[in-house]
């Protein structure tokens, strides 16, 4: 079964929603849920059998567009399909309390988001990556402004403005690449990128860094993130921090490893990532709004992933992939729990966690926070430990210090929050959580613990994904670069 179905099916279901809505009131919800489950089955079935192969579109590479499915991209495809399926499962029960008014539009955006994030991860043609960059962007802008309240509209407006500027810089970089290299295929570009004159290489890299920097939430370019997280509803924030940021992170570093395999700018990027983690954690300390606080913690964790990826060696990338997995699952738990707590409308203060009257939700949120903190026996610890080890091995002790300090700062406010979990203060009315929602939470929490206890199960899978990502030569041979 070819990997193009991962993109073609969600697009088909997106275009066909008026037909699907004929099958009863919630026809769209159940059909797209079934489709997502089928894709998840497809991804899991591919995990065991895959040796990287090329999926061509209408004409063989290096001329036309082609998709490369290797264990690195498959890792991300599995995460995205798994998380979106659980998201739809959660939403099916959530919509009884607080439905999005015209719900078919919500599911169209969800399917388009799934198709574009998988497209970003699989595509091996730089202009095709720009098109998926836009599809993921535009569905995220509408999802964040979905509720049409003033703060949601302001969040959507700011997200759209930064996204439009980012895409202008990305088109500038693609134009320069085509003018100097003459091809759009990543394999052909990676072969002749080294031969370009030095200052053109620097210019293209800076433009790509600015273009992707907005979306990868790096220090100088992430001023908009916290407003967008606070403005849009918590349900949608789970998608932002769980799926979209990870797709952009992977694409940026996939391109970086192909264009600059010798890692000329990796030292600069490592320091950039470390500084942005430090700044994100420091500013996050004095936040009182819950959504804003978790937005800053997302910034910090994404910066840590950026730093680990920027190391450009096997241990660094393996650590980054571990943190990607742990952070996505933990942030999914936290933002979905926030949706259940606040019912989405008013932005809630930290203290409201004290009156949370649902021991089940408290336990689940506690597990997610411990994993984000990096406490042993949880998935977060494995990632952070590997990252710190890779910094130490490379002898980058300044970076090691910065990361340790920012993790300590992060643990201050996470311990404060988990302290609220145990407090006996007065309780509000009992919060009832649907049974399928409970299954979703338990499944996610179980995964966090399972990976924490037995990381060796997936560490070799992530190890050879790291090797495949670093190996630019075999990538271009496979694509038959000219």
């Amino acid at each position, binding site marked *: 079964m070819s990997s193009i179905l991962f993109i073609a099916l969600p697009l088909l279901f997106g275009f066909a929603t008026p037909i699907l809505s004929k099958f009863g009131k919630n026809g769209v919800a159940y059909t797209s849920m079934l489709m997502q489950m089928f894709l998840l089955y497809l991804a899991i079935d591919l995990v065991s059998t895959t040796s990287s192969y090329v999926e061509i579109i209408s004409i063989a590479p290096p001329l036309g567009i082609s998709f490369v499915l290797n264990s690195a991209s498959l890792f991300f495809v599995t995460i995205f399909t798994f998380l979106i399926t659980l998201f739809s499962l959660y939403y099916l029960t959530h919509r009884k309390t607080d439905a999005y008014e015209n719900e078919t539009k919500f599911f169209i955006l969800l399917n388009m988001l799934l198709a574009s994030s998988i497209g970003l991860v699989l595509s091996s043609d730089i*202009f095709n990556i*720009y*098109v998926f960059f*836009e599809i993921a*962007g*535009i569905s995220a*802008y*509408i999802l964040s*402004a979905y509720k*049409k*309240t*003033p*703060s949601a*509209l*302001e969040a*959507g*407006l*700011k997200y*759209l*403005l930064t*996204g*439009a*500027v980012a*895409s*202008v810089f990305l*088109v*500038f970089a*693609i*134009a320069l690449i*085509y*003018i100097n290299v003459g091809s*759009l295929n990543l394999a052909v570009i990676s072969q002749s990128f080294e031969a370009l004159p030095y200052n053109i290489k620097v210019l293209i890299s800076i433009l790509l860094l600015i273009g992707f920097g907005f979306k990868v939430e790096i220090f100088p370019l992430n001023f908009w993130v916290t*407003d967008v997280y*606070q*403005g849009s509803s918590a349900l949608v924030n789970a998608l932002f921090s769980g799926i979209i940021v990870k797709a952009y992170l992977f694409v940026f570093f996939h391109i970086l490893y192909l264009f600059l395999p010798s890692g000329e700018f990796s030292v600069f990027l490592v320091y950039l990532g470390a500084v942005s983690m430090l700044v994100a954690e420091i500013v996050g300390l004095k936040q009182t709004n819950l959504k*804003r606080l978790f937005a800053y913690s997302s910034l910090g964790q994404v910066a840590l992933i950026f730093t680990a990826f920027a190391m450009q060696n096997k241990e660094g990338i393996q650590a980054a992939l571990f943190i990607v997995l742990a952070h996505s699952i933990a942030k999914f738990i936290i933002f979905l729990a926030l949706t259940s707590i606040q019912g989405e409308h008013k932005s809630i203060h930290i203290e409201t966690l004290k009156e949370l009257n649902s021991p089940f939700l408290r336990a689940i949120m506690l597990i997610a926070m411990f994993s984000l903190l990096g406490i042993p026996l949880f998935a977060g610890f494995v990632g952070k430990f590997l990252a710190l080890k890779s910094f130490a091995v490379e002898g980058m002790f300044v970076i090691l210090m910065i990361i340790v300090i920012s993790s300590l700062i992060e643990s201050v406010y996470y311990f404060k929050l988990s302290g609220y979990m145990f407090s006996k203060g007065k309780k509000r009315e009992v919060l009832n959580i649907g049974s399928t929602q409970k299954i979703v939470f338990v499944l996610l929490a179980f995964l966090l613990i399972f990976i924490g206890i037995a990381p060796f199960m997936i560490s070799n899978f992530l190890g050879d994904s790291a090797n495949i990502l670093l190996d630019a030569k075999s990538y271009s041979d496979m694509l038959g670069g000219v």
Partner: protein
Amino acid sequence: MFEFLNQQEVIKTIVTIGSMVLFFVGLFGLLTRKHIIKIFISIAIMESSIFLLFIGLTFNTDFIAPILDNTHVNVSNMNDPVPHAMLLTAIVIGMAVLALGVSFAIEYFKLTGKTDINEMNEMKH
């Protein structure tokens, strides 16, 4: 009378200088203007400057448009069609994002009456 302007190199320099100046006019507008619609206009100007740069540097003066018919069948003296195809998509995507942005600005103005980007702070209070 200005014969020297017709050489390929001179045209490429004119195109580069012109589109880069246009790009920075758009960037200048983006950074300094406050009205939300003027910011969208500056982004549209930046985009069109990139498109002009792209086509300007990849076209050859003595080649013809890449359209074959029974008289022009010799493919060697035709311009490269791939930048044209990319631009077709990029122009329409740019317009779609701007249309969406304008609709956000209209709705936001209907609810709060604000068009100044600095006054937009619903989150603070």
